[in-house]
């Protein structure tokens, strides 16, 4: 046994392949920079697009088309006084912005942003003499990692609101946590439908399973996609689900007491989440970087297709914001618990039934008919339970919803 084996490490760095280390460092730096630059662009794009949709001009002073407006705003944040309220819980108050920003960065690590998926390639590219993927990491449980990170992101908002020592942030954070926990269930169930078809949890595998036009968008019958899109908008706390920071009711929501760099971190996290969530939607339902190679190297087309699809969803989120009025809180909860979760669960069971039928050579029409009867019976029971509960409340003279 050599000393290196005993220590299980290599203090003189003899056996280290610097090419591998270089690739990892390069990928991390590129992903980090790309995300930051795309956030700068996203903030500008959102302000410009909303302005156009509202017949305004929007930022047009700093740089061409106002492109440097975000940089100017960012610099302004750093110059501002960094204040912590007297009644705040100092340590948690300082911790909270990082709990919001770090998971937002980490999610991007498992998103495949390029690579050639045509002709049975699995997005492998070759740099420094090594085969690698155009994503920072491809863990075997990639898509679960995304869900886990979106679970952690709740903490930043919750603890920020609580530690501010002020009632409006607290109300905002209680709303946020209830909303995010409610919609996470529907989000997870629609991801499960995708995983059922891809038969893998790795993001690279999910993309490879959709090459080139077998997108999960239609493979899963559109319903999981619509549910995911709605639930993702709610997870992002964006309009029409932006009750968390409803200015008219809560001053500014959970981040009311934050200023300077800490506020900038929340702002950054919010827009990073928009970018990464759009990237996740593209990966799950639209085949990520997969697409036809027209002319030139294949890896370049992967990135081009990915960017085109991503921009579509970024615009969609901005469009939502400019168009849709905010939900009322009870409507939000009704939509989440009584519509989206039963629908996602029922659709998932239907897809699973069809999958089993496919393996066992059953008649798919009969399977769909039996499943429809079963799901209708389940829905009938649910609806009657809701009706009975409402009737009970009415009988007791409470306010009916």
């Amino acid at each position, binding site marked *: *046994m050599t000393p290196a*084996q*005993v*220590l*299980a*490490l290599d203090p003189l760095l003899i056996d280290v392949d610097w090419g591998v280390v270089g690739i990892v460092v390069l990928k991390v730096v590129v992903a980090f920079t790309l995300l930051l630059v795309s956030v700068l662009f996203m903030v500008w794009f959102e302000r410009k697009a909303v302005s156009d949709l509202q017949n305004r001009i929007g930022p047009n002073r700093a740089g061409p088309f106002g492109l440097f407006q975000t940089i100017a705003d960012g610099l302004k944040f750093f110059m501002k006084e960094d204040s912590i309220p007297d*009644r*705040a*819980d100092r340590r*948690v108050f300082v911790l909270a912005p990082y709990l919001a920003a770090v998971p937002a960065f980490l999610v991007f690590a498992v998103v495949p942003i390029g690579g050639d998926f045509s002709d049975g390639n699995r997005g492998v590219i070759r740099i420094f003499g090594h085969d690698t993927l155009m994503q920072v990491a491809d*863990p*075997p*449980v990639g898509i*679960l*990692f995304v*869900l*886990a990170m*979106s*679970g*952690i992101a*709740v*903490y930043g908002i*919750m*603890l920020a609101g*609580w*530690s501010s*020592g002020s009632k409006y942030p*607290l109300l905002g*954070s*209680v709303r946020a*946590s*209830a909303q995010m*926990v409610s919609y*996470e269930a529907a989000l997870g169930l629609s991801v499960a439908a995708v995983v059922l078809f891809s038969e893998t*949890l790795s993001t690279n595998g999910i993309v490879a399973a959709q090459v080139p036009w077998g997108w999960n968008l239609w493979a899963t019958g559109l319903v999981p996609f619509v549910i995911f899109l709605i639930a993702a908008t709610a997870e992002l706390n964006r309009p029409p689900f932006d009750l968390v920071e409803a200015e008219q009711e809560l001053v500014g929501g959970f981040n009311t007491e934050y200023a300077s760099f800490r506020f900038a971190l929340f702002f950054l996290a919010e827009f990073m989440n928009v970018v990464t969530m759009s990237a996740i939607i593209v990966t799950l339902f639209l085949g990520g970087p997969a697409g036809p190679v027209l002319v030139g190297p294949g890896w370049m087309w992967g990135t081009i297709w990915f960017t085109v699809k991503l921009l579509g969803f970024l615009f969609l989120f901005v469009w939502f914001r400019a168009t849709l009025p905010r939900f009322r809180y009870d409507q939000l909860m009704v939509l989440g618990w009584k519509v989206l979760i039963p629908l996602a669960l029922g659709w998932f069971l239907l897809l699973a039934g069809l999958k089993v039928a496919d393996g066992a050579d059953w008649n798919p029409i009969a399977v769909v008919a039996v499943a429809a009867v079963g799901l209708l019976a389940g829905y009938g029971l649910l609806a009657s339970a809701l009706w009975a509960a409402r009737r*009970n409340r009415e009988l*007791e003279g409470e306010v009916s919803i």
Partner: protein
Amino acid sequence: MTLLAAANGISLPGTDDPINVSQTVGFALLAALMIWAAIRVVTTRNVVHAAVWLVVVLAGAAAQFILLAAEFVGVTQVMVYIGAVIVLILFGVMLTQAKLGNDPNLSRRNWYGGAVVAVVLFGLLAFATIDTFEDAKLPEDRRMALPAAEVGDGEVPRTESNTGAVSDAVFGAYLLPLEVLGVLLTAALVGAIAVARKD
């Protein structure tokens, strides 16, 4: 092979492999962090701080799973415990009594009883673990193999993914306990609602 391992058909990894020192060091660091955080959970005088320290303990457990190359269990730990259970605890605390600052009434006088229970539980778990695994070491190839009893004649054991192996075990050998657990949790949920809503 000890009784418990023999009963469950767990194939114990070899005892001749060299010890993986960096893994052991990582385990020790994480374990120290977890113990410190666990002590802070019970000694801190603020409910929300206690919940946050509990998150550190659970994240440490997830990190230990990942250190053991059980990434599925690790990520599930984060999703279920950190992403759901503690969030709900915090949510409940915020709706009821989320005081800022220290709460002198947080420690109960009969905390010794809890300490005794904790020591007994630790002894039981430590005994079961040591008795099962003795001085077995982790194999260099960390992919989990199915228990020998699971693999039928002429069937190649599926070892290509940990997640697949876990699901095969959960929905194969341990299907009945899983279903019973599901019924138990539903019963607990219904019971909680019945207790909370007396109308």
